[in-house]
């Protein structure tokens, strides 16, 4: 007893205590900083949701606490769901995004596989080049692209987005996939080659399952590009039946200087819902590593 007491005597204990105290302060600091971020990032969506639950009368009355819906109502949502135009925008966004995701991921996976594994001459230069194209801002490209799209006769045609969005999504997705594929040990494809697999089989049966977290990460990115883009649809689509959600909300729900705030915010909530739902479901996959156990860990 005595010896233990001496062992855990004053000096070492003090040291441990100060370490713990440092940790505690670091933790408090992190919480403080994170709280600021949470407030900054969550206030606009909160306000959006609150406004979407207010009636037009309540919004225009400008009385009471603007942060709380006094008389919550779903009339804005009901209006949108039954509104033909909103349905069309939503539907357009869905099919455009789905096609963009499929197209971008197909190109990105094939490109990344060949760039990271086939080892042909110049593959290094091309990989770097792919990433560099991502660094060119889309806002610089839309004027030259306008000419190309015009000459293809695709102005004011929703298909133009299926053609253009992959140019934004593919470079970054390819880059993510090159990273993931490169982390797969080369022995795995060599083992598969010896086992009798062809390159397409190696891609389908080994690489895609093993790199699933990377594929999901890239898919989320491609989805975000397709769903949330504003500039290109604004520039290339002008008639209501061709518009997608992002542009449609602004164009159709703001008439002249009349802002239907409740409806606009409800449309925003409905537009934001799909990405939020997808992120929530796929986050676990996104984080999970699958390669553990492939080689000596």
């Amino acid at each position, binding site marked *: 007893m005595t010896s233990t007491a001496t062992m855990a005597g004053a000096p070492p204990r003090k040291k441990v205590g100060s370490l713990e105290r440092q940790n505690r302060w670091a933790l408090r600091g992190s919480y403080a900083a994170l709280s600021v971020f949470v407030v900054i990032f969550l206030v606009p969506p909160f306000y959006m949701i609150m406004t979407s639950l207010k009636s037009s009368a309540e919004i225009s009355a400008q009385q009471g606490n603007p942060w709380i819906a006094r008389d919550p109502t779903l009339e804005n949502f009901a209006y949108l769901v039954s509104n033909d135009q909103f349905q069309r925008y939503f539907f357009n966004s869905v099919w455009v995004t789905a096609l963009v995701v499929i197209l971008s991921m197909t190109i990105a996976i094939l490109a990344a596989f060949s760039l990271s594994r086939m080892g042909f001459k110049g593959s290094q230069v091309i990989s770097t080049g792919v990433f560099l194209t991502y660094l060119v801002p889309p806002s610089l490209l839309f004027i030259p692209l306008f000419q190309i799209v015009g000459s293809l006769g695709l102005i004011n045609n929703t298909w133009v987005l299926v053609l253009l969005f992959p140019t934004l999504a593919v470079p970054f997705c390819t880059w993510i996939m090159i990273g993931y594929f490169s982390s797969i*040990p080369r*022995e*795995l494809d*060599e*083992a*598969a*080659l*010896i*086992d*009798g*697999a*062809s390159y397409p*089989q190696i891609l389908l*049966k*080994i690489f895609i*399952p*093993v790199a699933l977290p990377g594929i999901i990460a890239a898919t989320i990115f491609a989805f975000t590009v397709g769903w949330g883009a504003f500039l290109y649809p604004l520039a290339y689509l002008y008639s209501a039946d061709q518009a997608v959600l992002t542009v449609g909300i602004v164009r159709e729900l703001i008439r002249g200087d009349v802002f239907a705030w409740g409806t606009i915010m409800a449309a925003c909530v409905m537009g934001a819902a799909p990405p939020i739902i997808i992120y929530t479901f796929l986050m676990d996959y996104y984080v999970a590593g*699958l*390669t*553990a*156990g*492939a*080689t*000596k*860990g």
Partner: protein
Amino acid sequence: MSQVSIRKIVKSYEGDVQAVKGIDLEIEDHEFVVLVGPSGCGKSTTLRMIAGLEEITSGEIWIGGEVVNDVPPRDRDIAMVFQNYALYPHMSVFENMAFGLKLRKFSKDEIKRRVDEAATMLDIKMLLDRKPKALSGGQRQRVAMGRAIVRNPKVFLFDEPLSNLDAKLRVQMRTEIKKVHQLVPTTTVYVTHDQVEAMTLADRVVVMNHGVIEQVGAPQELYHNPQTRFVAGFIGSPAMNFLPCRLEEAAGALRIRLSDKLAFPVPENRTARYRPHVGKSSLVLGLRPEHITETKRHPEPGQHDFDMMIDVVEPMGMETLVYFTIQGVEASGRVNPNAGAVAMQSMTLRADLNNMHLIDDTTGKVL
């Protein structure tokens, strides 16, 4: 029939670096051949060329009587076990072992029969449903071997399969590999940098260095009759002692002189062989530590006692290693633990010259 023959194969990389410099090797059907050498000696490259994972710059590789230079790996009818196991992480043990058979369109029953058979042989039957990440290193290595066995290929290739295991498991798996080869006597090419692994497993050992074959032979042959200084030093642990020496002739007999005070008579049966080298300046005496022992009874012909100041003593349990210095060169001997070796004290040691090697250091050849 599944002989492997390697004819004048060369592997050079960009920038004229030659990893393999035109080697020839004939591997018989059912033979277990081990390629051994220090890292960068070209042994893995050679194995990968046999596997078809590496292009051959020039020369020919034959497997089972066919040139396979332009045959892709999957059509060479080989199976390979990798150092880091290379198991497919998303597949169960069963699926890992069945993968190659599925791709080759074997029937489900046949796949199950073969996997079961191999799993029983390797004692991994209870692991068939697990994923690789739930296995220990030794179990993963067994699965990797199982994946090779189920294919029943012409040739097994092993690329340092035991290097990632801890010492105890390595010895255990070594025995396991030998057992498997006795049960399934497939032609095997095995690469390792561990000479003990090479000696214990091989029918024949191929010692490689700097992209060339130094010597090919049965383990005992390499051990007792190395042809070069490199092989003499590489095979055996602790390594052979190399002591610079002079060869003197007096009254028809030859003497190996190590220092002014220390000289050993050359055994008579070697006199004729060594006589042409009398007076050469770059000779080295090669003597394994086990041929420097404590003194026992009367010396037999060719054995000579000498006194030496012992620098370091390393008790190993069944034997004790003693280190001493002759003319600034460190040498070691293996003595009985009860021989009374004490550091910094003089001890009488016995050199068995019947097992000596005389090496010309300019050519590196054993004379």
